């Protein structure tokens, strides 16, 4: 029998989690003037745009959003098929900014490690914070998220899928045994 995906977040819960994260970001970074969001390709890109929209409403000002690809900064190229390289687009100066890195799922922490290196090649932000929709545990590096939509204990035999309406279909987060 093929494994069946189990729902972790439905569309309403996902949206609620993002709004809460946005408020937490706003609370932590009062003025907001120097806060920019950077979504990690590919899972974090749409989430970063949505968070920026909510934050713009809270702060009543535009919030800049960039995208960051980490394929060139990963440490496991030899271990797998070369990953697709997506564009990195950060059309603003990172120096002195507070950067909120955004990703969908925090797992081993290796993507975030690569993202930190990639980001520091592009400038010297004042500080970097991390926002993730799902923290599923199993960290292999000393990395911790500042803002978490949902903590979900998982086994390494499970897979988490984040679907967003920007890609068609409905917002949903599901978990499935492999």
């Amino acid at each position, binding site marked *: 029998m093929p494994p069946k995906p189990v729902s972790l977040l439905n569309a309403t819960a996902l949206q609620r989690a993002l709004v809460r994260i946005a408020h937490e970001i706003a609370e932590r970074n009062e003025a907001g003037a120097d806060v920019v969001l950077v979504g990690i390709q590919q899972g974090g890109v749409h989430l970063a745009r949505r968070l920026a929209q909510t934050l713009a409403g809270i702060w009543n000002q535009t919030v800049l959003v960039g995208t960051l690809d980490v394929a060139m900064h990963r440490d496991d190229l030899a271990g797998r098929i070369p990953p697709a390289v997506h564009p990195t687009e950060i059309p603003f100066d990172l120096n002195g900014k507070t950067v909120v890195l955004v990703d969908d799922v925090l797992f*081993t922490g290796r993507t975030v490690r690569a993202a930190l290196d990639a980001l520091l090649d592009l400038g010297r932000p004042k500080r970097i914070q991390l926002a993730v929709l799902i923290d599923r545990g199993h960290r292999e590096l000393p990395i911790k998220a500042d803002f978490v939509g949902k903590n979900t204990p998982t086994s390494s035999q499970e897979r988490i899928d984040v679907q967003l309406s920007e890609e068609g279909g409905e917002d949903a987060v599901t978990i499935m045994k492999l």
Partner: protein
Amino acid sequence: MSWTRKHLLDIESLSATELTTLLDTAKAFKAVGERAIKKVPALRGKTVVNLFIEPSTRTRISFELAAMRLSADVINFSAEASSFKKGETLKDTARNLEALNADVIIIRHAASGAPHFLSRVVSSNIINAGDGAHEHPTQALLDTFTVRERKGKIAGLNVTILGDILYSRVARSNIWALTKLGAKVTLCGPSTLVPRVFEQMGCRVTHNVDEAIADADVINLLRIQHERQRKAMFPSLAEYTNLFGLTKARFARTKPDALIMHPGPINRGVEIDSDVADCDRSVILEQVTNGLAVRMATLFLVCGGRGPQEIAG
């Protein structure tokens, strides 16, 4: 995204999807070259060997810089300073490089098929940087990349390759890449240098330059390789210029948005008029920039493993 090859030996065996993957990857690497920090750690700890048995400066330097920008260590091995002079075979040289744990060997050789041979006798990743009259894959990739960037597409374009095509690996690789991606290729030059046999590769062959350039979206000029006994092939360089050179008069009759390309080094006043080479439709220097991006992408892709595609975050 689909890339599972260990080597880049030729364009002929690549699918259109693989070509597109290479071009898309190169696009991301081009952006790296435009940053303040032009280096990424993708190939950190890898050793790349430039094994250039046939002299070359620009291709070798381009590969060398590409490898450095990926954080690999690079050594250069040239025919003049090597053990070839002492009678060592290509196989033994390559085995010696392998014994030094070279991860990637970039080879240029006067014999067609030398890279394919190497890929069978050593376990390193092999990249063909030009083998005899056979292929020069990264040149075709950078030409195709430049066209795609300027024109937004390849399919449906009329591309004319003009010049010394008979022994040109650049022409062969370009023909494969362009036709696989849906362009219409016309070859033109003196009949001694552009034989009809190229029609078998799916090209149009003409010896009338005005006809060849009239509806071309891209004109790729190949250098007259006068160091390779071209004297018997046409009467004189001046006559070549008269009959086939891209002079100002001919340039004026091209489509107003036709791109002018040349793999370099250019012979000003022979195959191309000096002012035409410097005009705003000439993308000759962009080709050089794009060559770096394409070679970074090639190194990155051949160094990938064969493990799962999925990224565990």
